[in-house]
């Protein structure tokens, strides 16, 4: 439709050929007609990046390989190798180097072996471990704090008597456990302690319960201590995986709550790449689990690069005026003043009371939007400055910011409401199967359209953040033209999805929805964000 976009694609995107690769989401996109946008030329690329989603089991396999390697090289148990690696933040090379240099000191530092002079740290427990030799404790040490004396009183007096756990003092406990240090405690206490470390503190490095004892529990010990609580042990294994992932710059844990998937994205791991690519990745657990590998924002912030996205989010957080705006999810009808709550993704609002139709963003009458949508999308800086002649510059800049912020937040809110839209659409799809002769497969276009609207809103949202930082020039005008086109297409699509369905028109609707479905890679390219100059 507009060949100049194609031209700009070529000149803008050639240099990153090897950085980004084109991924066609579902393969069916090419069937769709794009009514306002060019079809991408075969050589153009999208803002998609190569990545791999890994399950926890797959990461555990990677961990297993490292553990096996170290276990083989050092001739130690796999459990020991795992602790050594964890202590070295999974840096195998560094561990091998240090271990070859001095295995003993590495083992002591990692909490796997007792320090050279065990008396200093464990003397006060000898009473309970059955080798009491009072002469070994120096009087100077006793005098130092008196702490040892008190603790000794808390420990059972003699080894002939049955074991009394120095933590719970429950003499009915018969089962005990101890690490290599010999600090014996009842199994119940070990279990409570291990559970608390794992569940409350999210700790995978569980040291001995004795004061100042640095000895660390192996996986086998932890498993034994937890006994039948297999879910706590599963959580422990997850914590080890999380530690491994956090130590590897090519890996990131899915930020969505309770998700245990990992994403591997080496091309998004370098800071310098982030000025030209936006490494949006998704985990295999759920298609909604999209996040940015570069900056950890748990949303698709294309087409804005990480630095700008973070700058914008920081600005939104800092601006106190914004806080008031966020709260206002309701607006008043400009005709009858009744309160209207936005409950769908579409900006076309109709007041239930007086039937006044207006635009949620600018509150202007909807009738004017059909032909002059740009009056809502573009902030007319000249007009605004003229109008606020007398007002201070800071006020004007706040107005300017709020203009972009309002539009940004509006799409954010609409996108959030899309979950409801999904369920409503699902009901509508069921309806359509009954009222028209369409099969389940055939009505899938509705769901696809909702997906598309959601993705477009995310993109639109970020284009407003982008526009805020753009210098006013011809390129920005082109940018805003594209933005306006996308905005209009999204609103039309949104409205089609939300409209009530007349059984006979189902087929016609299908055609319309399919026609309106836009393709984001094209939009990302046409906005050409990374080649515009930031002010």
């Amino acid at each position, binding site marked *: 439709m507009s060949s100049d976009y194609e031209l700009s694609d070529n000149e803008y995107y050639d240099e990153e050929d090897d950085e980004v690769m084109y991924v066609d989401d579902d393969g069916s996109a090419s069937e769709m007609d794009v009514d306002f946008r060019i079809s991408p030329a075969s050589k153009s690329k999208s803002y998609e990046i190569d990545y791999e989603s890994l399950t926890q089991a797959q990461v555990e396999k990677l961990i297993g390989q490292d553990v096996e390697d170290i276990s083989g090289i050092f001739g130690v148990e796999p459990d020991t190798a795992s602790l050594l690696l964890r202590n070295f933040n999974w840096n195998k090379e560094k561990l091998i180097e240090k271990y070859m240099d001095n295995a003993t000191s590495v083992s002591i530092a990692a909490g796997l072996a007792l320090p050279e002079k065990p008396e200093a740290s464990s003397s006060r427990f000898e009473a309970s471990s059955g080798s009491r030799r009072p002469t070994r404790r120096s009087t100077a040490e006793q005098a130092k*704090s008196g702490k040892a004396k*008190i*603790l000794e009183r808390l420990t059972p007096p003699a080894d002939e008597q049955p074991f009394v756990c120095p933590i719970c003092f*429950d003499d009915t406990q018969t089962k005990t456990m101890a690490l290599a240090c010999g600090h014996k405690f009842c199994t119940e206490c070990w279990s409570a*302690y291990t559970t*608390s470390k794992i569940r409350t503190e999210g*700790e995978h490095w569980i040291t001995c319960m004795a004061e100042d004892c640095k000895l660390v529990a192996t996986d086998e010990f932890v498993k034994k201590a937890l006994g039948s609580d297999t879910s706590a042990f599963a959580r422990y294994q997850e914590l080890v995986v999380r530690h491994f992932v956090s130590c590897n710059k090519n890996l990131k844990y899915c930020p969505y709550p309770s998700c245990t998937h990992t994403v591997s994205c080496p091309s998004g791991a370098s800071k310098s790449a982030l000025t030209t690519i936006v490494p949006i990745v998704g985990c295999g657990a759920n298609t909604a689990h999209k996040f940015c590998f570069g900056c950890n924002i748990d949303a698709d912030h294309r087409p804005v690069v990480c630095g700008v996205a973070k700058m914008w989010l920081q600005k939104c957080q800092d601006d106190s005026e914004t806080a008031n705006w966020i709260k206002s999810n309701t607006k008043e009808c400009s005709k009858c003043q009744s309160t209207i709550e936005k409950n769908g993704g579409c900006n076309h609002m109709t007041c239930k009371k007086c039937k006044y139709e207006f635009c949620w963003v600018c509150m202007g009458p909807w009738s004017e939007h059909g032909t002059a949508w740009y009056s809502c999308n573009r902030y007319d800086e000249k007009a605004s400055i003229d109008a606020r002649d007398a007002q201070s510059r800071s006020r004007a800049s706040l107005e300017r910011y709020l203009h972009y912020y309002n539009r940004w937040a509006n799409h954010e809110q609409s996108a959030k409401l899309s979950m409801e839209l999904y369920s409503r659409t699902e009901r509508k799809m069921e309806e359509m199967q009954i009222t028209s002769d369409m099969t389940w497969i055939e009505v899938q276009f509705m769901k696809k359209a909702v997906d598309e609207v959601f993705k477009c809103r995310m993109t639109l949202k970020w284009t407003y953040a982008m526009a805020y930082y753009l210098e006013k020039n011809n390129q920005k005008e082109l940018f805003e033209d594209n933005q306006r086109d996308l905005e209009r297409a999204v609103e039309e699509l949104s409205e089609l999805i939300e409209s009530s369905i007349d059984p006979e028109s189902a087929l016609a609707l299908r055609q319309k929805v399919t026609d309106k479905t836009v393709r984001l890679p094209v939009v990302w390219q046409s906005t050409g964000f990374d080649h515009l100059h930031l002010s």
Partner: protein
Amino acid sequence: MAVSSRRLQKELREIKENGTPVGITLLQADDFATWFLSIEVLGETLYAGEVFALKFRFDPQYPISAPAVQFVVDDYYKAPVHPHVYSNGHICASILGSEGWSPVLGVISICITLQSMLASCKERKPPPDNDGYVQRAPENPKKASATYP
């Protein structure tokens, strides 16, 4: 009986039978939820002649996790002016956090540690972030995300 109650019963019996170390006095231990003890630092220290009260709060997790401990601040008692003690009585001590706490420690060992923390103090100075912390700190010090200056 819950582990925390049995353990506190044992600690109370120890105190009643053997007494408390010098400078430490049990003020109140009527239940297994809240205890009060007083501490003073003897000898030539910055806090000579001052008596401070400590409030201990125990939850069922005690002694697996540390009790909530703070200096009492009321009409009678004041918190010591100390780089690790906030004016609302909250204390920054690693022994009270998950890193430094060990389940073998108890009420008396906490008192001794805090006593020696005061005894070794070189300068009567509040923590650098005192005002900010006191403003936003929760009532229970265990609910504050502690940092150890």
